């Protein structure tokens, strides 16, 4: 069966050029960069070249880049490292309700360790208001962490304006640019951020490699990983040289392609959004209609559940994802969709389609050749009253266990 991969926000295939660079590092340039001999030196050179590539791709200096095991580690390291070293200055951290769990759960964990936390709300498009940030700041605030673009609904935050507010009060600002990297320009000076997270596997490098940008002079210290003196004491552990080389190459290519790829993907995205909204009734777009990632389309389909849509799509050869509780392993649907005020039952019917270099405009036609029938079949099976409302029962486990259930309000 012909398969169409529509899940590039989950992960991407490694680009051939990247795989090639990596292969060389696995087999030939295999030394330990810390070693004093020839092999070590070659590996060191490869790591430093990659550091320069990553730095240049985001407008940073090479010595401001630390390699990590991925987006999750970079987020943990950023938030924890700033919090710990600034403890004597203040204990207040600000983030938002739509952050990735790598940030949100790190902040929440600090909330149990003597820090006070503010989780900013978002509007129906998933946007954080600049005024909300300004009024949340206190003289105890030491860190603001807000993501550049959201993985679940694609909305791009006004990071430049948000970071400016933090800067005017002398507060450190971190952004997670895992999803925006390679899709829209990411420049640390243009954005005005102090720390920035990127992850390899969302930009056609492998899984398990990422980087954290730490602006020179920013008060941050490694507080999680103890060990050797690698990365100038900023990240212990023998460098993942093949991963680092791959990330360097992937960043270089991502920026090179910024001229053409986003416009290409946006064309496919807009064709897809229009087709879905026009030809499938009771469907809406989630996230901001314009301020969104060029490769990101996310929807809710009323009366049906996401996992059963994903299964049906998979059987027809399409790979997508959903924020439904049934796919999350908990009884709660996506915290991002709920934070935007989307009711539980609608969040269960969410589908995310994220495009990449391998997609073509025809993929939309192929998708539209199967999706309406899938929706129709599942709707025909649905007990929900499709004329008026969703039923309510008081013995619902999720309603009782959820503090976000809108029906309780």
């Amino acid at each position: 069966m012909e398969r169409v991969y529509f899940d590039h926000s989950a992960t991407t295939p490694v680009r051939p050029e990247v795989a090639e660079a990596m292969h060389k590092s696995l087999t030939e340039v295999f030394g330990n960069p810390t070693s004093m001999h020839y092999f070590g030196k070659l590996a060191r050179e490869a790591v430093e070249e990659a550091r320069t590539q990553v730095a240049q791709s985001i407008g940073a200096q090479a010595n401001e880049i630390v390699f990590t095991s991925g987006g999750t580690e970079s987020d943990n390291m950023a938030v924890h490292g700033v919090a710990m070293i600034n403890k004597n200055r203040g204990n207040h951290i600000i983030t938002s309700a739509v952050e990735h769990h790598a940030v949100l759960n790190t902040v929440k964990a600090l909330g149990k360790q003597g820090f006070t936390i503010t989780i900013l709300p978002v509007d129906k498009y998933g946007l954080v208001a600049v005024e909300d940030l300004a009024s949340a700041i206190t003289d105890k605030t030491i860190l603001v962490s807000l993501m550049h673009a959201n993985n679940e609904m694609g909305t791009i935050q006004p990071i430049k304006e948000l970071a400016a507010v933090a800067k005017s009060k002398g507060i450190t600002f971190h952004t997670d640019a895992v999803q925006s990297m390679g899709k829209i320009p990411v420049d640390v000076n243009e954005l005005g951020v102090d720390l920035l997270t990127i992850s390899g596997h969302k930009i056609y490098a492998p899984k398990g490699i990422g980087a954290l940008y730490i602006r020179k002079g920013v008060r941050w210290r490694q507080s999680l990983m103890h060990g050797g003196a690698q990365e100038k004491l900023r990240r212990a552990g023998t460098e993942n040289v093949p991963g680092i080389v791959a990330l360097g190459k992937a960043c270089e290519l991502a920026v090179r392609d910024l001229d053409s790829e986003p416009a290409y993907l946006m064309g496919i995205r807009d064709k897809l959004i229009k087709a879905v909204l026009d030809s499938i009734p009771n469907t809406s777009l989630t996230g901001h209609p314009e301020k969104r990632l060029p490769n990101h389309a996310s929807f809710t389909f009323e009366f049906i559940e996401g996992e059963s849509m994903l299964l049906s799509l998979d059987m027809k050869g399409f790979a997508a994802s959903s924020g439904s509780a049934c796919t999350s392993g908990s009884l709660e649907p996506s915290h991002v969709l709920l934070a935007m005020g989307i009711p539980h039952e609608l969040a269960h019917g969410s589908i995310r389609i994220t495009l990449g270099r391998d997609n073509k405009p025809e993929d939309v036609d192929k998708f539209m050749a199967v999706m309406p029938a899938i929706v129709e079949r599942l709707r025909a099976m649905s007990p929900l009253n499709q004329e008026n409302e969703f039923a309510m029962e008081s013995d619902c486990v999720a309603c009782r266990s959820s503090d976000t259930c809108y029906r309780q309000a």
Partner: protein
Amino acid sequence: MYTEKVMDHFENPRNVGEITDANGVGQVGNPTCGDIMKIYLKIEDNIIKDIKFKTFGCGAAIATSSMVTEMAKGKTVEEALQLSNKAVAEALDGLPPKKMHCSNLAADALHAAIKDYQEKQK
């Protein structure tokens, strides 16, 4: 992650729909939780002559609903009341652990429909 039987019942669910002259109807779950299941029964001479379902939920929810209707059809009311969630899951060659609650719904919906029938007989 699903067994072949689950996928078969998901793809070709048995007994989907409504029974207009049902004499027992049961519904459990809630759309807020992501799962809701409704079962319609036509019981004659204490025997389940016809059974249909409608389900809002994941693949496992749809497959367990389909399976429970197949298992209950032709059974007496007493036999149908003996049908457990576990038996439904087993008949599908098992469910992933985090999907076990979906099978709860199927047997619960059947029992709710039978209860509705019994109430109506009083």
